[in-house]
């Protein structure tokens, strides 16, 4: 609890490395967390081999949701779409390095949910994607 707001999270919240838009993008998806109104949009560019070679996110919300989006963008850079499909809740928690209760977990997982919905080409982002 005491390191909930680790330097890493505050830094990424205040100075995100991957905030922005890609236009055009190969994959774009966005969604809200209806409980708190957090919003995340993810843009990806993918090379012909299916490797992600450009990433960006945008949105608004708490430090947890925005820092986790920024860290997630960093982690998928250079990965394949297949690898993104394998990402889980545990990967996000490991990246953030903190424990989260059920309410804040939704903040942390919003970016992964949006990313996977985009990669799978789904019409909407479902919680099933990050369970």
């Amino acid at each position, binding site marked *: *609890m005491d390191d909930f*707001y680790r330097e890493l999270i*505050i830094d990424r919240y205040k100075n995100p490395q991957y905030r922005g838009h890609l236009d055009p993008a190969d994959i774009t998806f966005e969604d809200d967390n209806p409980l*708190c*109104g*957090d919003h995340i949009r993810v843009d990806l560019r993918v090379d012909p081999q299916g490797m992600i070679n450009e990433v960006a996110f945008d949105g608004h919300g*708490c430090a947890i949701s*925005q820092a986790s989006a920024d860290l997630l963008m960093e982690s998928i850079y250079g990965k394949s779409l297949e690898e993104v499909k394998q990402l889980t809740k545990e990967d996000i928690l490991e990246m953030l390095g903190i424990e989260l209760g059920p309410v*804040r977990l939704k*903040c942390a997982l919003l970016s992964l949910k949006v990313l996977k919905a985009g990669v799978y080409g789904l019409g909407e982002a479902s919680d099933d994607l990050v369970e």
Partner: protein
Amino acid sequence: MSGLLADANAPGYAPDRQAQENSTTVERSGMSHNNRLDVERIRMDFPILGREIRPGVPLVYLDSTATSQKPIAVLQAMDNHYRRTNANIHRGIHTLAEESTALYEEARKKIAAFINAPSARQIIYTRNTTESINLVANSWGRNFLRNGDTILLTEMEHHSNLVPWQMLAAEKNLQLEFIPVTSNGLLDLEAYEDLLKLQPRLVAFAHMSNVLGTINPAREMIRLAHDIGAITLVDGAQSVPHFSVDVQDLDVDFLAFSGHKMCGPTGIGILYGKRELLDAMPPFIGGGDMIKRVYLRSFVPNEIPYKFEAGTPAIAEVIGLGAAIDYLSQVGMDQIAEHEHQIIDYALERLEEIPGVEVFGPPSIHKGGVASFTLKGVHPHDVSQILDKDGVAIRAGHHCAMPLHEKFNLPATARASFYLYSTFTEVDLLVNAIYKVKTIFRV
């Protein structure tokens, strides 16, 4: 039936000595000699307020607008019921059924007296404010509104006084119009008078905003609505718990409120309605208790209030709400309102002196004990999370009023809210904790 059973709080009725001591706590609570609330004494009636969130960190509960804490008198009334009088109500001939029914109906009389309803039969038990409003939308609205009719709401409504009307409007092709909120968080009453020219059939609005804390001039608004022949519904979720509400003085047609925000349990809400409206309305939910007679292919509905109370209700919760009303009445609603006014005055003053804090809503003279604010550079969720470390419980989000937040261009706010047990010290602890947030976020 009444008189069969003593008030659950009365000495001698308690199942054990501990509970007897607790019940005397209730009798002692309330006012000191100078007619101000003895808050320290009141706090002793609420066991949860003695809790530590972590070792050495006491709870600072500033989320009463979401739900209030419960005094011993309420816990004990519900406990007594399950220990001594539990039985299904109505129709039973045995002693427990009679006692249970008496307690259940006694609570209805207490609630009627509390809001000065002409008769206890105009008090309908529901689950909460939301269900009360849905009852009006489904029973009155579906049967008495016609294609093209207008419903007038406000921009500061909670979702529970918005979505039921949106659903009804979609079904019956109704027009929804909204009284605008001014930049200082008040309803634009000039615009209201203009909107009344559209001849709305219903005017429905919150007595007090759960976000801005604004107390709307309900009596005047109802008078203006009646002048053009509209029916009025007041969402009293935030008003009935916090100041004295008199339905006859307001002349309101429907009033909806929840037990859990006024020291009672969750799962019990109230709909008050004018007699002629309730009598004309068809039942909402079908089942047992709401009927006078049932045939294989038809039924004859019961009279009010039972017409609207199908199935086994929340008996223990009703009894708990009755005890909550006794408790609030003993303390005094005018004293509670005055105390909250002093607290919000102080809270606004302290919050506004913090650089980067912006408080939303009108000045304290127009408002109840709610302070919604933002801290520049920090999301309200993060504010709330860090405050929790110091045991300070506030709410963060859109507080079920998304359109209002959109109006002010805010994704979310942090909200501290106060009640009869809130102290000036708690305001100081809130302010100190906000300074810690600023340190952590370097803002």
